[in-house]
């Protein structure tokens, strides 16, 4: 089945130690998103790639960066994680064709813990 896969499902890192979360998709969607979701809160969009174009949200901390080396893969890099970055990180994909947007498909998330 076509899907969005996030690895790892659980990630523990030390305060200040860089960490990378990974997302891959077999849907051939041209848009990939990263969301942060803290406990009992709404998922919050960090940034997205529309093809190769990177789009950062205005309130996304500089500590968060992303890479999309090809259509299938997208990475979330946290350069110096703080305790406040502990959260569920969700990757999503969608296809934009003209003005038409398909609903976003989500992966199962990576739960990040900071020691």
């Amino acid at each position, binding site marked *: 089945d076509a899907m969005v896969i996030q690895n790892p499902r659980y990630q523990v890192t030390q305060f200040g130690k860089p960490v990378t979360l990974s997302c891959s998709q077999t849907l051939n969607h041209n*848009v990939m998103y990263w969301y942060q979701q803290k406990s009992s809160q709404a998922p919050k969009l960090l940034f997205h790639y529309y093809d190769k174009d990177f789009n950062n949200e205005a309130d996304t901390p500089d500590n968060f960066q992303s890479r999309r080396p090809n259509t299938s893969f997208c990475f979330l890099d946290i350069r110096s994680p703080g305790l406040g970055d502990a959260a569920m990180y969700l990757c999503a994909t*969608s296809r934009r064709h003209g003005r038409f947007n398909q609903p976003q498909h989500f992966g199962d998330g990576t739960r990040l813990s900071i020691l």
Partner: protein
Amino acid sequence: DQQVKQNSPSLSVQEGRISILNCDYTNSMFDYFLWYKKYPAEGPTFLISISSIKDKNEDGRFTVFLNKSAKHLSLHIVPSQPGDSAVYFCAASALGLIQGAQKLVFGQGTRLTINP
């Protein structure tokens, strides 16, 4: 400033009855609305959507109603089944303004429990 609000953190409904989940929004530019369902340890799954040119969209047991003047939408599930127990997220987008990709603003979610 929370643009999409789900004011009920939880809802409990008896199996076979109707479940009604509510969502309010403040941004009048939103023109496309979605509901996602989330089971524990899984990502959100798309359930149903509605464009602002409609006031109702139906898909099997699921119906979404949109009241633009009240900036309110609701999801009706009839009849409710135990497998419907999950967290439901409302999301909104301003497609008309977007030159690039769709960006969703989510509510905090409502945990629905269907009791046998």
